[in-house]
C-alpha cells in the first residue's frame, strides 16, 4: 500500500495543476485519474474543447494541446505519480485517509477531490436508441460526419455556442434549440453565433422526441417552427450541462450544496479536515480551466499547511 502526502482524485487540468504545485511544496503526490464519468483521458474535459482562447499565455490552442502541456508539467516532478485508476472509496483513518481504487489501495494524509463533472444526457424518446446514430455529445469528435448536413444543437450555454460554431465548419445548417428566451454564451461567442449565416437560434423550444430509421432524420419540437412541430435534420448534438461527480466525497461526509457541488472556502477547504475540492466539482460560480487550475494550486498549498508546512512529509 503506497503512502502519500497528497492524493488527488481526478486527472483533469485542475488535478494535474494541483499535483504540480504539491510537488513544488515537497508533497509526495499521487493523481488517480479515470474518475470522470465518461472516462476521458488524462487532461479531462478540456480535451473535448476545440479551441481554448482564455488561458493566459496562449492566445489560441486546442484543448488537447493545453492538456498535454499541463500533464507534461506535472509529470516533470519526481514527486508526482499519475495512475489511470478509478477510485471506488475514500475512508477516514486514524492517520489520514485510505483510498481504494479498482486496482490497489493507498494511504494519504490529505485528499483533493478534483473529480469534475460528466455530460448530462438528453432523456427523451429516441435519445438512447439513436446515441451515436445521429445523437451525439462530442461535437469535436463526431462533427466531421455531418459535412454538408443539417444538424441541431440542444443547449444555450457558452459550450453550446462553441459546439454550434464548430459544427458550422462542417454542416450546411445548424439549429441551436434552446428552452429559454435567449442563449447565454460569453459575449464574444454570442457575437460569433449572430454573425454566422449557417447558425439559426430557435429559442423557447424543447425537443420532445428524436425519430429516424437507422439514423436520426427528424426531431419533434414542443412548439411550431415555420408552421410545424417536425424539424428534419441529420443529427442532433447535446450540450445541456453537466452532472457533478461528488458521490465519493459525500460518502466521506463532505458537505455539498443543492447542485451536489462540494462546498469549499477560499482556500478550497471542505468541512472535513484534510479534504479539499477544486475545479468543476467545487461550488464556485465561474468554471473555467483557468479557475480550476488556480483552485488546484490553492488546494496543494492548503494541504501543505495542514500537514505542517513541510515538517511531517512522507
Amino acid at each position, binding site marked *: 500500500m503506497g503512502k502519500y502526502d497528497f492524493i488527488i482524485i481526478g486527472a483533469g487540468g485542475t488535478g494535474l495543476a494541483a499535483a504540480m504545485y504539491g510537488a513544488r511544496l515537497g508533497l509526495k503526490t499521487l493523481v488517480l485519474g479515470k474518475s470522470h464519468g465518461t472516462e476521458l483521458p488524462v487532461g479531462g474535459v478540456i480535451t473535448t474543447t476545440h479551441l481554448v482562447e482564455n488561458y493566459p499565455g496562449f492566445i489560441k490552442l486546442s484543448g488537447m494541446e493545453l492538456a498535454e502541456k499541463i500533464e507534461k508539467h506535472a509529470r516533470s516532478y519526481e514527486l508526482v505519480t499519475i495512475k489511470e485508476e478509478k477510485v471506488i472509496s475514500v475512508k477516514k483513518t486514524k492517520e489520514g485517509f485510505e483510498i481504494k481504487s479498482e486496482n490497489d489501495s493507498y494511504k494519504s494524509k490529505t485528499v483533493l477531490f478534483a473529480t469534475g463533472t460528466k455530460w448530462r444526457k438528453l432523456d427523451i424518446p429516441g435519445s438512447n436508441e439513436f446515441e451515436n446514430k445521429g445523437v451525439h455529445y462530442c461535437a469535436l469528435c463526431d462533427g466531421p*460526419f455531418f459535412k454538408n448536413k443539417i444538424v441541431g444543437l440542444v443547449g444555450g450555454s457558452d459550450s453550446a455556442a462553441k459546439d454550434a460554431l464548430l459544427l458550422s465548419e462542417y454542416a450546411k445548417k445548424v439549429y441551436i434549440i434552446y428552452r429559454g428566451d435567449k442563449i447565454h454564451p460569453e459575449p464574444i461567442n454570442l457575437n460569433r453565433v449572430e454573425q454566422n449565416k449557417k447558425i439559426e437560434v430557435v429559442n423557447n423550444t424543447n425537443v420532445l422526441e428524436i425519430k429516424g430509421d*437507422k439514423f436520426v432524420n427528424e426531431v419533434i419540437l414542443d412548439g411550431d417552427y415555420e408552421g410545424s412541430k417536425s424539424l428534419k435534420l441529420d443529427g442532433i448534438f447535446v450540450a445541456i450541462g453537466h452532472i457533478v461527480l461528488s458521490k465519493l466525497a459525500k460518502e466521506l461526509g463532505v458537505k455539498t450544496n443543492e447542485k451536489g457541488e462540494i462546498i469549499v472556502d477560499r482556500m478550497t477547504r471542505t468541512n472535513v479536515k484534510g479534504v479539499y475540492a477544486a475545479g468543476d466539482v467545487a461550488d464556485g460560480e465561474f468554471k473555467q480551466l483557468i479557475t480550476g487550475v488556480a483552485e488546484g494550486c490553492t488546494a496543494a498549498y492548503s494541504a501543505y499547511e495542514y500537514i505542517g508546512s513541510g515538517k511531517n512529509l512522507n
Partner: protein
Amino acid sequence: MVVKVYSTPTCPWCHKVKDFLKENKIKFEDIDVSSNQKAGQEMVEKSGQMGVPVIDVDGKIIVGFNEGKLKESLGI
C-alpha cells in the same frame, strides 16, 4: 493481425486508443474520417453508427475506447 483505427484528429478518445496501441507495440492503420469521406462511410457501414473511434481488429469491430475489449481482441 490487421488493425485499423477510424478516427478524427481532434477526438480525445481516438488519441487514447492510438496511445494504447503504440504502448503495446501494435501496428495499426490510422484512418482520418474527417478528411476521407469514403472511409467514414465504410466505418458507418461496419459499425452501424457514427461515433469515433472505431477499431477494426481482423474484422471484429469495437466502438469507443474500451480497454477490456481491445485487450481481448488483440490477445494481450
